[in-house]
């Protein structure tokens, strides 16, 4: 039977071909394709995440501002859901059958395997019952979540709030996964990494039935949970609350700084929002509603509103004039209800005349500062207006204007100090002079300054020449927090000695005789130094501004108050500033008449208008 001998080669060929096909397929499967390795890990490991409790936030005196309450999300992993008593489950959660199916389908669409939120933040009472019965509902788990609570309904703009992470957060930081919470704004955002702690991770080996066999690789990949660290911020809750009440009738901002440390004592943006509204399941809809409000309560005016500084800026021009040597304290000007020059007229009010520098500040004389500004811009030491302007600008920006101050706080804006090239573009090079930009002599025009910058300027004057970058952090985990950035003295380009007459002028503005612009801010036994301002507002009524620090020697508090659309700075801003200073320095307010006057502010106003 040798006829079919050749057919043996068919067998050998088949065996070899099958062998080659198998080895090729194995090569593709084991060496080329990577995805199977990942699948294998997902297959056999169960990652159990433990969430740390978020750090608490205290004020400078140890008063609790933000704490946590227990909240639970019901999570589901659809692949593990098997038959159970849905009626009981639904009635526990207070949802109907359709709602149940809808939620389950949403989870399925997200992922069959990965846990996702079935129901957010169920009430504590329900969660307690669920805890006991959870074993009856395969595939469902309870996940505790941080939910903030605010013992005092204050400082929402400073504290910010936490919300669920969005797609962007997840992509930019792999710490986060869907359903996690993150500080969205405010201190919650800027100290997110301190407050959040570190999620703990336990990796277990599981088998096909999802049973845990034991720790994976003896817990080599486990990570202990690290609770969030508590922080203390520099706000004084008492003062914050007081300032917020005072600002109740108004729109605007109050920022107070401790000059010696740069710590922000108070930061109010009115209208305020009760932080307890910014938690929980309804956060999204609350935010939506608040965003639609015409008064824009979510807008943090303290760091984001940019106003012209008005007459408060005269202090800066005085300092620049002294530093550049174009004026002395004795330099006097005659004022006839305004400044007239080549057809330009800047009006002024009724006051003694002529005035020297101190008197100019005390009476806030426009004529005086138009002349000072002319001297600065026509400085014979420099070639032209542009060079003079640039020197002026360097002095101004050394106060921290025109740039972000670098607070430990998100969403700060820069303000604006125009540059020479801006005017070059506008008027073409060499075709502008002091007259063109005269409005900046009295703090109007292109100048834009935020309340925090203004408060910082006041602190700089109080310190006679330097500031420490304003900041909110005081302690982390009970330890004084000394960030290099927040200790360094930032010296201005103005000599300390030049501050003396300006401070004297501010003293007299409050404590001087008739004609002083801010006598209403006077406090018995405390030397308050202040300066009023009125920011012209093209959109409506002028803004009322007041800056002040006290006491004159060894200043403890420096602040800026902005009240929108309320006219002259002495009317509302000065009394508010004065009351805050009194409250901070003496612990109580004796001038209840002034308090009442402010509290009824708007209504008085309207009555008179009627």
């Amino acid at each position, binding site marked *: *039977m040798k006829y079919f001998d050749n057919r043996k080669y068919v*067998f*050998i060929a088949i065996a070899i071909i099958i062998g080659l096909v198998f*080895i090729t397929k*194995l090569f593709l499967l084991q*060496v080329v394709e990577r995805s199977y390795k990942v699948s294998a890990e997902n*297959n056999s490991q169960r990652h159990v995440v433990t969430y740390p409790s978020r750090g608490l936030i205290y004020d400078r005196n140890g008063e609790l501002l933000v704490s946590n309450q227990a909240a639970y999300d019901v999570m589901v992993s659809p*692949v593990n859901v098997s038959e159970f008593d849905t009626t009981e489950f639904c009635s526990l959660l207070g949802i109907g059958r359709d709602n149940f199916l809808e939620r389950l389908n949403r989870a399925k669409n997200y992922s069959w395997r990965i846990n996702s939120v079935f129901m957010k933040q169920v009430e504590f009472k329900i969660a307690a019952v669920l805890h006991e019965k959870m074993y009856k509902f395969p595939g469902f788990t309870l996940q505790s979540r941080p939910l903030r609570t605010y013992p005092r309904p204050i400082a929402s703009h400073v504290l910010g709030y936490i919300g669920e992470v969005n797609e962007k957060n997840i992509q930019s930081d792999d710490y986060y996964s869907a359903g996690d919470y993150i500080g969205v704004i405010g201190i919650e955002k800027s100290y997110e990494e301190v407050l959040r702690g570190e999620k703990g991770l336990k990796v277990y080996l599981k088998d096909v039935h999802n049973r845990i066999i034991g720790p994976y690789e003896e817990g080599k990949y486990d990570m202990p949970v690290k609770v969030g660290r508590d922080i203390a911020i520099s706000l004084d809750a008492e003062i914050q609350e007081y300032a917020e009440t005072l600002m109740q009738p108004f729109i605007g901002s109050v920022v107070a700084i401790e000059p010696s440390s740069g710590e922000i004592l108070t930061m109010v943006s009115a209208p305020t929002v009760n932080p307890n509204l910014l938690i929980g399941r309804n956060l999204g809809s609350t935010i939506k509603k608040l965003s639609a409000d015409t008064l824009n309560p979510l807008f943090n005016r303290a760091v984001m509103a940019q106003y012209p500084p008005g007459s408060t800026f005269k202090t800066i021009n005085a300092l620049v004039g002294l530093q550049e040597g174009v004026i002395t304290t004795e330099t006097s000007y005659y004022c006839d209800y305004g400044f007239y020059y080549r057809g330009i007229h800047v009006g002024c009010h009724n006051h003694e005349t002529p005035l020297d520098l101190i008197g100019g500040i005390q009476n806030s004389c426009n004529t005086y500062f138009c002349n000072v500004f002319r001297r600065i811009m026509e400085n014979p030491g420099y070639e032209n207006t542009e060079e003079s302007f640039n020197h002026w600008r360097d002095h101004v920006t050394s106060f921290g204007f025109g740039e972000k101050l670098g607070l430990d706080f998100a969403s700060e804006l820069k303000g604006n100090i125009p540059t020479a090239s801006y005017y070059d573009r506008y008027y073409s090079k060499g075709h502008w002079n002091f007259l063109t930009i005269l409005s900046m002599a009295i703090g109007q025009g292109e100048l834009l300054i935020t309340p925090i910058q203004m408060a910082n300027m006041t602190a700089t004057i109080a310190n006679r020449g330097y500031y420490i970058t304003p900041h909110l952090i005081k302690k982390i985990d009970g330890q004084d927090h000394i960030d290099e950035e927040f200790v360094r003295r930032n010296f201005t380009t103005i000599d300390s000695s030049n501050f003396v007459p300006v401070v004297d002028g501010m003293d007299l503005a409050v404590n001087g005789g008739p004609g002083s612009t801010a006598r209403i801010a006077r406090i018995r036994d405390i030397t308050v130094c202040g300066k009023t301002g009125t920011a012209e507002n093209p959109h409506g009524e002028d803004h009322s501004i007041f800056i002040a620090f006290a006491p004159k020697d060894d200043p403890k508090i420096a602040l800026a108050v902005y009240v929108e659309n309320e006219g002259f700075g002495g009317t509302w801003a000065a009394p508010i500033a004065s009351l805050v200073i009194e409250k901070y320095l003496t612990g109580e307010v004796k001038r209840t008449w002034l308090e009442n006057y402010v509290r009824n502010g708007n209504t008085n106003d309207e009555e008179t208008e009627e």
Partner: protein
Amino acid sequence: MTRRDNILLNIDWFTVFLWVALVVFGWMNIYSANIMKGDGTVMDFSQRYGKQFIWLLVSIILILIIFLLDAKFFPFFAYLLYGITIVTLLAVLVFGKEINGAKSWFVIGGFQFQPSEFAKLFTALALARLLSSYGFVLKNFKSLVLAGSIILAPALLIMVQPDLGSMMVYFAFIFVLYREGFPQNLMVLGSILIILFVITLLVEKIYILPVIWIIALIVIKLFKVPLKSVLYIFAAGILPAGILVFFMQSGQQVMGYESVILISIAASLLFALIIAIRLRNNNLYKIIAGMVISILFVISVDYAINNTLKEHQKQRIYVTLGIEDDPQGVGYNVNQSKIAIGSGGFSGKGFLNGTQTKLQFVPEQSTDFIFCTVGEEWGFIGASAVVILFVLMIVRLVILSERQRSDFSRIYGYGFISVLIVHFTVNVGMTIGLFPVIGIPLPFFSYGGSSLLAFTLFLFIFLKLDSNRKELLR
């Protein structure tokens, strides 16, 4: 003639070495698949690796017995053993225990015994005896029926159990017939039918039948039938189809499209038959016959798929063919198996370090899916080594079979080769996703006493015959 007497020298030690390698490596993997870190000793007889160790010892005893027997014992008792096998297979249908939905096990005092594993061996013996009998010619119709009966009898009994996987192994014996001169044309037809089988699963038959017809026309032309005749045959099919479709378009719902196609093809075939008779063209006859068989096959496969296969068997076939992708459902086994093997990488996770197989993600991880453990723990190197061991064994056995002087030994050798090829191909193929999940073990490797003993006997009976080859004259 000292060589003739010295059995030890005549044994093919290379094959024995391959057997040892496979069996030992297989046992290591069974051990790994069943042991959890830190528990059990190597010889825990309540565990699978312990039991398998006992079966290994039993195998060695059986090997010794085989070599003590006279080589003539096997051809002499082939029919008797075959008869006993058939009786046993009948008995298991009555007295057997149903495990996993198939009545294929005897349970005797705690031991389970699967007669279908041994049936292959005795079928091979009987087939070798038949084909080697004096004056037996495969071309003869009667002899084909005889050979077919020997193969089909156990296959049918096993199908009744039902154990579709083991049943399909019997098709392996077609390879034996092929080696012994089974007509080439039938092999070609067989291949065509296999291809048609797959296509029938994938495509609706209403599309397949016209394509078969067109291909047949092309083949007819290739076999030098005049173009004119081909066109006649073509027209004979197209005309009735056109007329019928025209009627149906005009609103008279006489019959379904399937019937239209069948009638048209029948008309075309009839015309082809007339031409074949006139031209006396043998090839044309063959083509017509092939076409008739193909069409009947497609129709019956379609019927069988829809009416006889179990749902899960259908699903498995569909998943393998890529018709359905359902990793959590039917494809789960294959997907998990691929994950396990894929996760092994180039050099594997190391002995006892596999996670996928140990954690029972892979079903049947010590029986049908034992190859996963190899892939996961020994990586591409280990898995390829196993493939190479099997290929070497097959090639070596072909060489050994061809050097036999006795037809019986050669045919029996090819019987083993064929069964080995099918088991190896189907088992490894399914774990790496090339074949449907058909539950048959990997020879020498998978856990299971019946399988190990049956394959060992199967192999060593051949090695015994081989060691004796010089004593036999042609």
